[in-house]
């Protein structure tokens, strides 16, 4: 491949099906596919070339597809607690609170639920809680709430269903309606804080 052609390719806007290079020239990465030895664009976006490592990819122009990928942060609801050590979480928003195309159900295991030693996931989450999670595995979809910024961001009272508030200096979440107190693995992103 001539340097001139390579230079023309970098940053070029391409559309699905467009031939970019051959597999002899580059290692295909995201946004491209190989057909009969030819690397073609799979999405509409900008060609990005890593000439040192001989890699080629197409960077999407519109926001990327919202499919849970390892390391990414999502928001979701606790949709089921199937065992003492397993909870199901339905992911509905990405880290920017943008709606996902559909929902994705992931699994939260006890071992990923707290950095402290706990006996049951009920000690950190309850059914219906809104949680901030990180993807630790894609297939199957495994989630973690261990880190401080992960965990419950909105919780509802088990007694009356009202929103629970976090009070500075208190471990428990407090229900303003019925006075109930409950424990959660609360994220630093918790949405309802009562400073009064």
């Amino acid at each position, binding site marked *: 491949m001539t340097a001139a052609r390579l230079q023309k390719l970098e940053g070029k806007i391409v559309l699905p*099906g*467009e*031939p970019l290079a051959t597999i002899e020239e580059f290692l295909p990465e995201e946004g491209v596919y190989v057909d*009969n030895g*030819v690397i073609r664009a799979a999405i509409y976006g900008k060609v990005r070339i890593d000439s040192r490592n001989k890699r080629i990819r197409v960077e999407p122009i519109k926001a990327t597809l919202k499919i849970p990928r390892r390391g990414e942060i999502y928001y979701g*609801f606790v949709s089921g607690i199937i065992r003492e050590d397993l909870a199901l979480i339905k992911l*509905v*928003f990405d880290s920017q*609170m943008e*709606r996902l*195309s*559909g929902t994705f159900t992931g699994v939260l295991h006890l071992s990923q639920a707290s950095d402290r030693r706990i006996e049951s996931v009920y000690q950190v989450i309850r059914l219906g809680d*809104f949680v901030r999670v990180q993807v630790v595995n894609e297939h199957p979809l495994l989630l973690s709430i261990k880190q401080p910024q992960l965990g419950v961001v*909105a919780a509802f009272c088990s007694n009356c269903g009202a929103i629970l508030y976090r009070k500075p200096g208190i471990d428990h979440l407090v229900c303003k309606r019925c006075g109930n107190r409950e424990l959660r693995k609360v994220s630093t992103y918790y*949405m*309802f804080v009562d400073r009064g």
Partner: protein
Amino acid sequence: MVSITPWEQPVMPKLKRHTIASLLAKGVRIDGRKLEQFRPVDITPGYIERAEGSALVKIGNTMVVAGVKMDLAEPFPDTPNEGILVVNAEFMPIASPYIEPGPPDENAIELARIIDRSLREMRVIPLDKLVIEPGKIVWRIYVDVYVLNHDGNVTDAAMLAAMAALMAARMPGLVKEGDEYKVDRTRYVGLLPVNHRVVSVTISKIENRLVVDPNYEEETIADVRLFIAVSEDGRIAGLQKMGTGALTLAEIDKAINIAINLSKYLLNVLEEKVGKYRAELEKVFAEKKEIVIGGVPHTTSEVVVEGQPVESSVEGVGTVAVENEGGKSREE
């Protein structure tokens, strides 16, 4: 089929409820509008050229298209001297991630029925003028309302689309062959008679505040919605309370006042966009008596060499030049 409390609701708006409510308390909406302010309203009459009448309505991002089709039918035994009006509504699966393909659900059926009642009870369409032979054959008017993009307040958009489509509707020709009547779909012979203009203003109650034209998020957290259809002469043509909440008598009074006020705005848009369109059509019918469509309108400016069908041949494609675009093909 039974009606069940909606249990699977979009969740984000619930969490935003506080934000939305505290803004409403200051008289501001989440998108910066005032409580009694519509998003931009746009109507395109005649959007479906092949339908007798049609309109595309946009209220903000909400998009609804309505089409009017007509055919002949036997009148109902209890109304032998009236034509038939059928309103059907559907939420298309393209309209929202929360809509599944399938037959109309309770929301679609309710929507169709509240529009139907508002049109029927006002006698918007004089059905008695649609009789061909009493008790035997009458015109049947179908109004199909399709929600293309659901961003809240589908009811008002749908009502507006149905009304606009009817105002834009033309009557197809009618031919009698022996004893049988047939629709002549090659020509339109006049406008569908329309007696009244009816629009709706649906008032939503969110945290004890009354707002109009909610977007999807607002609509999801509204406790109760009151559909109010208003005619051009300021009468109430239809009502429907929807949602899980309730309204006080004072709230209802206030809601109706808001609706009657804002109906003037919608009626103005309707007149501006569709009334003029209808007047134009009226002029054409007054001059020409009919509008010919379909058929086989051959270009007359050219000299016809042979009037008869040409000989079978594949020569017509002899000049096709095939260029290959976008790189090498597999075979090459």
